């Protein structure tokens, strides 16, 4: 039986995690994400799962990486300051190909900033926060139901590509309440075991834990099953052995890690286009601002203005094809985000690829903790038609 609840986004996330099969959570209290931890502290023991409150966010992400290698789906949740602390181990999860889900309920920053106010100021930290080259996957829900759905999706993507997946949420979605439907069953992508059993391997025929399949992602054996996996944050070969000074070894590994995402970009990326076909102006947004944009676009259409919108579900990898198409067809692109301009740089990068007439790009950035009002967006839209 499916179930209907009237809950906060953060609570919906906790329910999504349970439904997706998450059985381990480690975290540290931080506003405005704490409800995710609080709800999982209640839910996990009822589902044979473990909840740990750690000494800090570095400990939290360390514990979930360990739990992931023990064979569990694992998650943590945090906000900007804690997300900053996690960055080194996020890089570790990338290079060791550890499936994880990390929820970042964004608040105003930098530093302690505005603990209770919404922001989308971490979008570039989600992309580039750890050192070195890597390709993250990030999802940004725009409703409480989507926070549930995207949490399930995040676990599936994490397992499929063996990667930490970030839920880049804003405080508006984290704290507002809406009705959600929890379906009886959700689609689950389970972790892929190696095809061979561990006793088929010996010194002459070693198990290669980091040898990828045809899609670029290796199956994942678990600790305690006799595969004897050496996992290291050092650059390593297919055996998992450190090989940190051979330039070729590093290039091979990191290129494969990036390509397993980039080569599957079209499958990972998700956007929703509305009224774009005849649109002179297309408004691009993600997360809570989508809600204001939809209202603004409806108002504009009522006034007869040819306006469309693109809602981005997956800021990373960036939906290049979809934005390119919009950049080719529209005269104006408006990016609406709760920061002083982050994803707008990606839009500008894509516009740079357009031959011939390039559209104008406008940013409606906003900081301070108030969601854009539909009127603010509508008046910017109208400027493009005057």
């Amino acid at each position, binding site marked *: 039986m499916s179930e*209907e609840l*009237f809950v906060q986004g953060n609570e919906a996330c906790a329910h999504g995690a349970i439904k997706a099969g998450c059985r381990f959570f480690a975290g540290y209290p931080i506003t405005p994400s704490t409800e995710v931890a609080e709800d999982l502290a209640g839910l996990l023991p009822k589902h044979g799962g473990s909840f740990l409150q750690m000494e800090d966010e570095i400990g939290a992400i360390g514990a979930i990486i360990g739990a992931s290698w023990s064979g569990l789906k694992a998650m943590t949740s945090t906000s900007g300051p804690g997300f900053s602390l996690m960055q080194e181990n996020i890089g570790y999860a990338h290079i060791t190909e550890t499936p994880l889900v990390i929820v970042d309920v964004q608040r105003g920053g930098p530093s302690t900033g505005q603990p209770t106010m919404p922001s989308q100021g971490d979008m570039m930290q989600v992309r580039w926060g750890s050192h070195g080259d890597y390709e993250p996957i990030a999802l940004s829900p725009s409703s409480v139901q989507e926070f549930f759905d995207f949490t399930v999706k995040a676990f599936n993507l994490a397992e499929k590509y063996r990667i930490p997946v970030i839920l880049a949420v804003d405080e*508006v979605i984290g704290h507002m*309440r*809406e009705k959600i439907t929890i379906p009886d069953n959700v689609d689950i992508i389970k972790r892929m075991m190696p095809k061979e059993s561990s006793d088929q391997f010996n010194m002459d025929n070693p198990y290669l834990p980091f040898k990828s399949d045809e899609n670029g992602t290796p199956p994942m054996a678990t600790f305690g099953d006799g595969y004897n996996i050496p996992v290291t944050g050092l650059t390593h070969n297919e055996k998992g052995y450190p090989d940190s000074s051979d330039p070729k070894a590093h290039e091979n590994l990191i290129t494969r890690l990036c390509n397993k995402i980039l080569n599957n970009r079209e499958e990972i990326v998700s956007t929703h286009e509305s009224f774009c076909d005849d649109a002179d102006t297309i408004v691009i947004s993600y997360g809570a601002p989508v*809600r204001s944009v*939809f209202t603004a676009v409806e108002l504009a259409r009522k006034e007869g203005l040819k306006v469309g919108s693109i809602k981005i579900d997956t800021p990373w990898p960036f939906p290049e094809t979809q934005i390119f198409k919009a950049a080719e067809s529209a005269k104006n692109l408006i990016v609406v985000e709760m920061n002083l301009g982050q994803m707008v740089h990606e839009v500008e990068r894509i516009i740079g690829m357009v031959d011939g007439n390039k559209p104008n790009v406008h940013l409606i950035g906003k900081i301070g903790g108030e969601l854009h009002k539909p009127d603010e967006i509508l008046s910017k839209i109208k400027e493009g038609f005057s």
Partner: protein
Amino acid sequence: MRTELRIAGFGGQGVILAGIIVGKAASLFDGINTVQTQSYGPETRGGASKTEVVLCDDEIHYPKVISPDILVAMSHEALIAYISDMKDGGTLIIDPDMINESEIADFVKKHNIKLHRAKVTKTAENEIGLRIVANIVMIGAISKITQVISHDATKEAILDSVPPGTEKKNIQAFEAGYAMDGN
């Protein structure tokens, strides 16, 4: 039709819970699209506290209140803080024992506000014997006066939200509020 409701009071009056119950009643039991939001942080400890509920038959995009159709004020400080952006002709419900009406008389007249009085704190104290259920009495008054949430849905939402063992007192409180004439 989109209806925007704001409930405000001081911290500890159960204002946020009132918003959650209204949202739950509308969304889960009356089947209306609903978004509930609230102010967070130091604001909610002491000082003025508020919650907002947007209700609509169609999908709700912009989730916050732009200009409330209904303002419910349980304290004078909250009333003064949150009255200014009310819609002309909107509905204002106040607890007269908590409020100095003379301060808003001009505003009410000028903006053609429909003013209702619900003595929820006194009712909670005298009829139920529990001051802390004033918020539930107020939910009864909201249901009766505004009709945005039905009697039965609200009752179910209350039963779904209050701690076990407190159901009886809370339903009593709700019915006491629902019985008010609002004048």
